[in-house]
């Protein structure tokens, strides 16, 4: 009985199996071969280009009003805010009357906290004055004619200013506006203003939100002024969601210089993205398991600009656009894939930069190349918010500087019949 009990207990212990071996390999393991092959694909880029104009107007997370001074750095940005639906009348009993006079008008802005904007944090310590100018930028031109809007930033259209020392800039700012100008626009039913900063120093002010336009208006027959508060709104908003809401967007009054030849530019203002279309051997995508792949680029230093040592993450995203010809669209429609697709660099850096693509290959495997071109899009994680610009040698550069793909893969293991 004791023997039986011992046997049962020992046998029960075997229910938790452990039959992992390997110490006797390769003597007793003829099937244990896994081959990892490293390869470098040099002539792998079929098309690369820099695409300017990101982010699309109206899709910015904030309006970064920016001004740079320097030999190669003269960037100026401006924010546009539209109030396209302003009531023209005031109620008088059961009737109403057109606004005839505006006693006072002001614009309220919310400034992004320095804790939330690391790039602006250093500016918050500057003890120099900064002025936020407000311009009347309404035009009869098309909503998408930003050149016409830019032309409206001139002294004659200035309708308000707010000056403060930068280290004393509060979170909420009220900019008083010219009442005559506001009255004229209220009588037309809309007001579009442009914001920019002025300072003797390179400066940026991140505007998190334009809260409202507020004015006290009078009409014939009314003894007292009536307060009107209007939020930003745009008559251009697409109903189907295919157009961004243009109630607030950023324009660049003066951008970063054009990049030199033979480079792909990433970042800058207006921000650029690097479009790189690859032609990978189909067997690497379809028939083997890629365990590591990296897009290897050679960075060319950008020096002499205000922010050339500020490190910014650069992402290598994969394009999900199926249109082979429209590289602008291909550069816009992107997504990230698993893996280390991001590298933090400063514009003045140089040397090799590897963007890991191992997570991208399985994504490409799901769709034939004829339907989904193998496109990598490089973009700055702070595009539209910061003028840092990065240059990488393109496929037109000398051979040793061109983009290439380093790939490591495991062919199918013949592990079936002994």
């Amino acid at each position, binding site marked *: 009985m004791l023997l039986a009990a011992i046997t049962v207990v020992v046998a029960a212990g075997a229910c938790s199996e452990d039959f992992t071996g390997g110490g*006797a390999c390769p*003597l007793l393991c003829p099937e*244990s071969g896994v081959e990892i092959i490293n390869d470098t694909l040099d002539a792998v880029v079929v098309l690369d280009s820099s695409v300017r104009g990101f982010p699309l107007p109206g899709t910015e997370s904030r309006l970064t009003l920016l001004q740079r001074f320097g030999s190669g750095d003269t960037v100026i940005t401006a924010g546009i805010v539209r109030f396209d639906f302003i009531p023209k009348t005031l109620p008088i009993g059961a009737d109403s009357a057109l606004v005839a006079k505006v006693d006072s008008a002001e614009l309220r802005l919310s400034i992004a906290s320095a804790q939330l904007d690391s790039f602006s944090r250093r500016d918050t310590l500057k003890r120099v004055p900064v002025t936020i100018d407000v311009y009347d930028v309404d035009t009869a031109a098309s909503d998408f004619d930003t050149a016409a809007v830019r032309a409206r930033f001139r002294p004659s259209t200035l309708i308000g200013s707010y000056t403060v020392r930068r280290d004393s800039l509060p979170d909420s700012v009220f900019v008083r506006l010219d009442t005559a100008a506001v009255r004229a626009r209220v009588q037309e039913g809309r007001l579009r203003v442009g914001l920019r900063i002025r300072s003797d120093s390179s400066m940026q002010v991140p505007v998190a939100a334009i809260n409202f336009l507020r004015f006290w208006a009078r009409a014939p027959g009314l003894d007292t002024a009536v307060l009107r508060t209007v939020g930003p709104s745009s008559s251009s908003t697409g109903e189907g969601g295919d157009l961004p809401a243009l109630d607030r967007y950023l324009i660049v009054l003066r951008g970063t210089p054009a990049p030199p030849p033979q480079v792909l530019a990433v970042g800058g203002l207006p921000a650029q993205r690097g479009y790189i279309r690859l032609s990978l051997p189909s067997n690497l995508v379809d028939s083997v398991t890629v*365990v590591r792949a990296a897009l290897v680029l050679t960075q060319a230093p950008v020096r002499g600009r205000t922010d050339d040592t500020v490190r910014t993450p650069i992402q290598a995203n994969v394009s999900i656009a199926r249109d082979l010809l429209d590289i602008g669209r291909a550069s816009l429609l992107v997504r990230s894939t*698993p*893996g280390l697709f991001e590298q933090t660099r400063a514009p003045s850096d140089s040397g090799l930069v590897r963007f890991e693509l191992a997570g991208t290959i399985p994504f490409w495997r799901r769709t034939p190349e004829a339907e989904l071109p193998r496109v990598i899009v490089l973009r700055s994680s702070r595009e539209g918010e910061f003028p840092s610009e990065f240059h990488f040698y393109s496929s037109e550069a000398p051979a040793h500087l061109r983009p290439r793909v380093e790939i490591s893969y495991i062919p199918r293991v013949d592990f079936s*019949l*002994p």
Partner: protein
Amino acid sequence: MIRPHWLLSLLALASPLAAQGTLSTQGFGYHPGQISSRARATGGALGEFDPTSALNPAALAWWERSGVMLEYAPEFRRVTTADSRESATIARFPLSGAAIAFGGRTIVGVTLSTFLDRTWETAQRGTHQFADDLIPYEVEFRSAGAINDLRLAGAWTASNALRVGLGAHVFVGSNRLDVFTRFSDTLGRVADFGQRSRISYSGAAASAGIDWRPLRSIGVAVSGRLGGTLRAVRNDTTLSTADIPMRLGVGLAYTGLRGAVIAASGEWQDWSKLDGLGSAQLTTFDGWDYGLGAELRGPRWFGGEVPLRLGVRRRTLPFGAAGAEVEETSVSGGWGFTIAGGRAVADFGLARASRTAEGGARERATTLSIGLIVRP
């Protein structure tokens, strides 16, 4: 080998794989012998006479009345080479079956037994140079499953001295084969590699046997199996075919000593018929399986006798290791007792096996076996 979850799926039960990293699990796997705990404890010598073993269909007649049986046989194994020593624990359910009696002379039974158990796993470590980085990795080869022998057999008692039997066999099962490579890259730059495939097997065979008592104290049992074609299939594609090995077995038993059965057996299988089923690297060896053992009347316990069993066994395993023949020698012992008023029998066995081959590798295995027979 039959995996622990056999009750959930009979087909899964038939999942063997040839083991690697050991001597016993080369090729298409380990052949447990298709014998019961009782027969195993006698070195296999009683296998031809044992009704619950899956060798001789004529032995089914000794069921005498309807019943079911199940066997559990975990193995504790140690593989030693010049550079390493590794231990492993494998749980096997190598045998199960049922029998139904029709009248007093006919028994029909179904037996499911592991024919070749290909369950094994190896893990090896290495490093690979990726660009500027030397990254460690671990490669894991994993094989699970078995080829199982499902036998439907009938036995007829022609007289007190002669019993005959016929069996129809279906060989079914599958091997699930996995390869994993995991890289120790904390930055996530290197993706893991995984490959999974499944090979299914199917085939048929027939067997026949007799159990003859020419003298009161002498028993002779002879059985044989002729195989048809065994197919290895992956994704509806036949990878290879081969004939199921032919098997011939003979057993002799002497019962002239009071309270004792002394038996000897020999079995031959032409495993080389499986050559065509595997790759060119597969090496097979036709082999003999000899057993010598005894079952002795032991003490009485709870009103029933407790038989004690002893045996020795030597056999050639079907598949070679690094091209060399693998021999297995084992000593075994066991005992059994009746429970539930004689309606059930529990058998216990313990076998210590030594497996050797040229090349320096050595394997020691201890196999427990517990068999439960219920005959209401």
